[in-house]
C-alpha cells in the first residue's frame, strides 16, 4: 500500500480538474490549419498543446507536442486536462478516437475541405467549438480568396507538376486529390499528372510525355536534394521542358499547403510565382498572416 501511495503521489498535485468555464480555456489543437484558425480567432493563448503538423505561428513551438496527428495517444491527450480538443478531420487512428470518445474527452472534429468555402467553414467550426464569433475572420479570408478567382481564371494555366521528394529513384509526384493538387489548381497551374490519386513515383517516359513547363517543390526538399541543378539531373525531370525553362518554384509547404486562414495569401503568392508580373489584386496584410 505504501508503495502504491508513493507511485501515485507524483500526480496528486496536478490533478485538480479544470474548472468548467463558459468558453473552453485549455485547448488542444491537432492539425496545422486547425491551430492557425485558433490563433487567427485571437484565442491562441489558450492553446496548451499541439501536434507535430502545427508549425505556425511561432508561439506554438514552445508548446507540448502530442505527436503525429495520425497516431494520437488517448492517455497523453487526457493528461493535458484540456476542456476542448480540436481535431482535424484527418486525425486518427479511428480506434484511438473511439477510446477518447468512450473516456468522455471533449473532442470536436473540424472538417478539412481544400477550397475557399472549405477554409471559411473550417474557421467557423473552430469558432463554434470555442464559443467565439468566427464570422469576421471567416468572411475576410473568404473575400480575400474570392477576390483572386476571376484574375487567376483569366491567366493561361502553367503546365506544372508537384514533386514531393526526389531523393531516391523516381521522384514522388502528386496526382489528383492531394492538397498540392488543390493549391496548384487554385494558383493558376494545370497539374499535368491526373491519372492517379495521391503521390506516386513518376517514370522518365511518363514525364517526357506529359512535358511539364514548371516544377513546384517544397523549399526544404529542394535544399536536401542539392538545389535546382541536382533536381533537374534526376532522369525523370531531365527529359522535360523544365530543363530549358528552369522554372523550379520553391514554396514553404507549411504555408502554401496548409489551407488555413493564410490560404488566400498563399494562393496569391503561388500564383505570382507561376505567373510573374500577373495583374493580381494585392491582398492587405491580415492579423493572422
Amino acid at each position, binding site marked *: 500500500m505504501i508503495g*502504491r501511495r508513493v507511485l*501515485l503521489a507524483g500526480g496528486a498535485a496536478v490533478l485538480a480538474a479544470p474548472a468548467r468555464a463558459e468558453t473552453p480555456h485549455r485547448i488542444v489543437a491537432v492539425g496545422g490549419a486547425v491551430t492557425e484558425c485558433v490563433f487567427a480567432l485571437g484565442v491562441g493563448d489558450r492553446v496548451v498543446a499541439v501536434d507535430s503538423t502545427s508549425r505556425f505561428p511561432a508561439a506554438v513551438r514552445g508548446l507540448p507536442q502530442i*505527436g503525429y496527428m495520425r497516431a494520437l495517444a*488517448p*492517455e497523453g491527450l487526457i493528461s493535458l486536462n484540456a476542456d476542448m480538443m480540436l481535431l482535424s478531420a484527418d486525425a486518427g487512428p479511428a480506434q484511438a478516437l*473511439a*477510446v477518447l470518445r468512450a473516456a468522455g474527452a471533449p473532442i470536436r472534429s473540424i472538417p478539412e475541405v481544400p477550397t475557399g468555402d472549405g477554409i471559411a467553414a473550417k474557421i467557423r467550426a473552430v469558432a463554434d467549438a470555442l464559443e467565439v464569433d468566427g464570422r469576421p475572420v471567416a468572411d475576410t479570408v473568404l473575400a480575400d480568396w474570392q477576390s483572386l478567382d476571376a484574375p487567376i481564371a483569366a491567366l493561361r494555366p502553367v503546365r506544372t507538376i508537384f514533386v514531393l521528394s526526389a531523393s531516391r529513384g523516381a521522384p514522388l509526384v502528386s496526382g489528383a486529390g492531394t492538397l498540392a493538387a488543390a493549391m496548384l489548381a487554385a494558383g493558376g497551374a494545370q497539374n499535368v499528372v491526373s491519372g492517379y490519386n*495521391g503521390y506516386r513515383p513518376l517514370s522518365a517516359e511518363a514525364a517526357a510525355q506529359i512535358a511539364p513547363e514548371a516544377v513546384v517543390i517544397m523549399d526544404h526538399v529542394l535544399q536536401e536534394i542539392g538545389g535546382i541543378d541536382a533536381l533537374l539531373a534526376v532522369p525523370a525531370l531531365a527529359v522535360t521542358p523544365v530543363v530549358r525553362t528552369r522554372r523550379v518554384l520553391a514554396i514553404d509547404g507549411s504555408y502554401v499547403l496548409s489551407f488555413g486562414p493564410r490560404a488566400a495569401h498563399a494562393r496569391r503568392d503561388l500564383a505570382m510565382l507561376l505567373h510573374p508580373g500577373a495583374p493580381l489584386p494585392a491582398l492587405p496584410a491580415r492579423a493572422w498572416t
Partner: protein
Amino acid sequence: MSLALATASPRARGRVAMLPLGAALLAAAMLAGVLLGPAPVTMGGLTATVLDVLGIAPLPAEYVRDAAVLGVIRAPRVLMAALVGAGLGAAGAAMQGLFRNPLADPGLIGVSGGAALAAVTAIVLGSSIFGAAAGVMGLWLLPVAAFVGGLLATLMMARLGTVQGVAGVATLLLAGVAVNALAGALTGVMIFMADDRQVRDITFWTLGSLAGSRWAHLPVVAVLVGLPTLALCALARPFNALLLGEAEAFHLGVRVESVKRLALTLAAVAVAAGVAFTGLIGFVGLVVPHLVRLGFGADHRLVLPGAALLGGTLLVLADLLARSLAAPAELPVGVVTALLGAPFFLWLLRRRGMGA
C-alpha cells in the same frame, strides 16, 4: 541450427520457482500498468473507482476523469497487452520447438505477413472494396481483415508445405518463406496504390500500438488469444519429445503430424487475433522464448508457459513506457519492446557465453 538442449542439472533448482515468479512479474507489471501513466490518478480517484466498480459507492463527480483513465483507457489496454504478449511469447516458443530452429518466430509461418497484407489492403481499399460493408463494420473492418488474412496465409503455408500428408520441417520453412515473399510483394502493391496519409497509417500499423484497446475487444482476444495460448502450453510433452527428432518422437508415441498441425493452428490463431488489434509487434515472439531458455533450460513445460508469462510482462511494461516516455505523445510499442528487450537479451547472451 538445432536448439541446444541445455544441460539440465545446474539450472534445475531455479525451475520450480520459475512459473510462480513469472506470474508474480506479470501481475506486478499489470498493476504498474494500471496505476502509472502520463495522466496522473490520485489515491482518492483509485479508491472511488474501485468502490464504484464493486458497486459499493457511486462515483463522486470529481473522480470522473480518474475513473475514465483507469477504467476506459488503462485497464483494457493492460489486459490487451498481457494477452497479446502472452500469445506472441507462447507462439514463438512453439514455433522454435516445432521447427527446432532458434530463428523461428511467428512471422515464419506467414501469419504476420498475411495479417499485414490484409490490414494494409483494408487501410488502402477499405471503403472502395467493402463499400457499404465498411460502414457497417466500421472499426471492426481492419481487425477482422487482419485476422482472416493471417489465418489464410498460414493455411496456405501449411498446405504448400505438406507433401503426401507429411509436413516436413524444411518444406514448411520454405513454404513459409514463399508465402511471406508473396504477401510482402502484394503489400508493396498496396503501398504503391496508397495515398500519403494511408502510407503513414500503414507505417504506424506495422510498428504496433495498444492505443485502440477497448473493453469490446477483450472477450474476442480472451477467446482467440488466451485459449490457444493455454492450449499451446498443454502441448509441452509432445514438444519435448520433438526436441529429440521427429522419428524419435514418433517412437515415443507422439502423433507427430497431428501435433504439428495443432501447434501451427493454435499459434496462427493466437498471433493473428493479437496482431489484428495491435498491429505488428516485433521481438516478443522471437526473443522472449530464448530469454526463458537461457534462464531455465529447454524443457517445454517451462519454456511454453514461461514465454507466455514473460511475453505478457514485457508487452505490458513496453506499453507503459510507450505511453509515458514521449507524453503527451506516444511511441510505437513495437519499437519499445525491441529497445527494452534487445540489450537485455544481448547481456544475457554474453554472460552465458562467458560462463559456459
